[in-house]
């Protein structure tokens, strides 16, 4: 995920920075299973102490940045607006905001340090997995065809241009590097720590999965997780509904390979398929629950509309649709809000985030054969209220 600056958690960072005290080794899912330094719960330790320590630094810096530098940046922007005779509470455009923000060297320094840290995070991870490619490719090849869950790859499928961007400036993005899943998993841990808290054991995904509303008849036999990435939400859903058939779909071949391998490692039977969210390939009315975890702000607004229609198609009448993503809407706003969005859009390379914010996601769902579930509480504050049932 990206994330929006919500809370800094210095205590959390300190806890993670401490050397792992409780070690375990995950069940061997194949003879080629690579766990060079054991595991902490379901999180395999990185392959070298050096890489682990490099990631420890970039995580710590990210927390520092969220708590100190972005806060400083916000205060300076506020001051600059007042100095320019503008009211920080007034609505403005991106161009108006940038006209002010660009002139402040400390705001720019905050942007630049964040990018440098992000680049080091990705580079050190990708360099490691490339340097040990044969070993890790063998591990994935061995895992591709074993269960408990299944993996469906489509190496010849068309991968649309809109999915090929280097989201979060992750080198080669989600589709272009054989180890995109590995790199994403370890790199995004620091995202969570700096905004939402610990997620090394998928705590955040489990919490969210545990709050999804059920269909009125209570029947949940099949579940779809669209844009599943490395399958953290899919696995959490399988844990909540162990008897259900759970599918995660994602266009990133390396992502679903990693998702499948990882789920197998801890005995989770979620299934994964390389597919677009707008074209999942499942039959009409197949699922009881359809969800997605912060996928929509990474796709064009027009694709979001197609994906809603696909969710409607694959859900049975009365099935529940709960796509989780940020509160959307608006091409203008207060300067502080716009600065945060611009930062994610441009410097975190969330290419489609402004397109996402150009539509009202919740209203688009309501237009397409869904009705809000009365009384179902929002899943999480930052995700808005999008609990719908197919009419």
């Amino acid at each position, binding site marked *: 995920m990206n994330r929006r600056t919500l809370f800094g958690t210095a205590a959390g960072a300190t806890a993670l920075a401490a050397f792992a005290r409780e070690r375990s080794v995950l069940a061997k899912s194949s003879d080629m299973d690579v766990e060079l330094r054991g595991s902490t719960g379901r999180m395999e330790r990185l392959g070298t*102490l*050096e890489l682990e*320590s*490099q990631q*420890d*630094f970039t995580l710590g*810096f990210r927390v520092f940045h969220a708590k100190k530098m972005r806060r400083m940046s916000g205060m300076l922007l506020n001051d600059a607006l007042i100095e320019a005779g503008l009211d920080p509470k007034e609505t403005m455009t991106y*161009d108006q905001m*940038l*006209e002010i*923000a*660009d002139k402040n*060297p400390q705001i*720019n*320094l905050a*942007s*630049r*340090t964040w990018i*440098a*840290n992000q*680049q*080091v995070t*990705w*580079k*050190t991870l990708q360099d490691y997995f*490339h340097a040990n490619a044969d070993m890790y*490719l063998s591990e994935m*090849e061995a895992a591709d065809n074993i269960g408990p869950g299944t993996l469906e*790859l489509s*190496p010849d499928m068309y991968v649309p*241009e809109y999915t*090929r*961007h*280097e989201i979060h400036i992750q*080198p*080669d*993005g989600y*589709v*272009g*590097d*054989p*180890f*995109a899943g590995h790199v994403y998993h370890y790199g995004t841990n620091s995202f969570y720590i700096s905004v939402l808290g610990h997620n090394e054991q998928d705590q955040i995904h489990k919490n969210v999965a545990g709050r999804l509303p059920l269909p009125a008849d209570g029947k949940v036999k099949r579940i779809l997780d669209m844009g599943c990435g490395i399958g953290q939400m899919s696995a959490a859903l399988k844990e909540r509904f162990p008897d259900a058939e759970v599918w995660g779909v994602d266009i990133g*071949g*390396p992502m679903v390979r990693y998702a499948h391998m990882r789920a197998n490692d801890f005995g989770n039977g979620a299934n994964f398929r390389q597919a677009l969210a707008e074209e999942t390939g499942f039959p009409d009315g197949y699922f009881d629950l359809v969800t997605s975890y912060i996928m929509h702000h990474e796709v*064009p*607004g*027009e*694709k979001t509309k197609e994906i809603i229609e696909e969710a409607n198609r694959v859900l049975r009448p009365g099935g529940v649709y709960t796509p989780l993503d940020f509160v959307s809407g608006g091409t203008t706003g207060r300067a502080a809000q716009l600065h945060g969005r*611009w930062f994610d*859009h*441009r*410097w975190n*390379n969330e*290419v*489609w*985030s*402004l*397109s996402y914010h*150009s539509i009202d996601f919740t209203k688009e769902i309501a237009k397409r054969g869904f009705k809000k579930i009365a009384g179902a509480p929002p899943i999480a504050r930052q995700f808005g209220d999008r609990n719908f049932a197919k009419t």
Partner: protein
Amino acid sequence: MAKLKTTRPTYAVDAIPSDITDAQYLGNPVLDNLVSTVIAMGTEMWATKRRLKVVEAVMEQKGVTSEMIEQYVPTDAQAEAWEVDRDRFIDLAFGPLTHTSGTHFSSDFKKRGDDS
């Protein structure tokens, strides 16, 4: 970033590179490069300090003294391997100083993803 060269199946396709390396934030590309170096240096310095903490803890358990460490002479193979690692460190920390960027500021960057 370098592409992985392999003949094995990877299920990867060509990505569209980010353009943020063209951005200049601090009014002078040299200053931008220095920021990258400072972050990389911090990364490497902390990795080293953290490793030393592990080494000292293990040594203490095994009865290895500080004097033994001070007197140690690397083998030829070690010296060679350490040189490789030193060069990797230098490339990570100081490589950014060789980056050449445009003269753009953030407001010169166009909004992306406009599919309307």
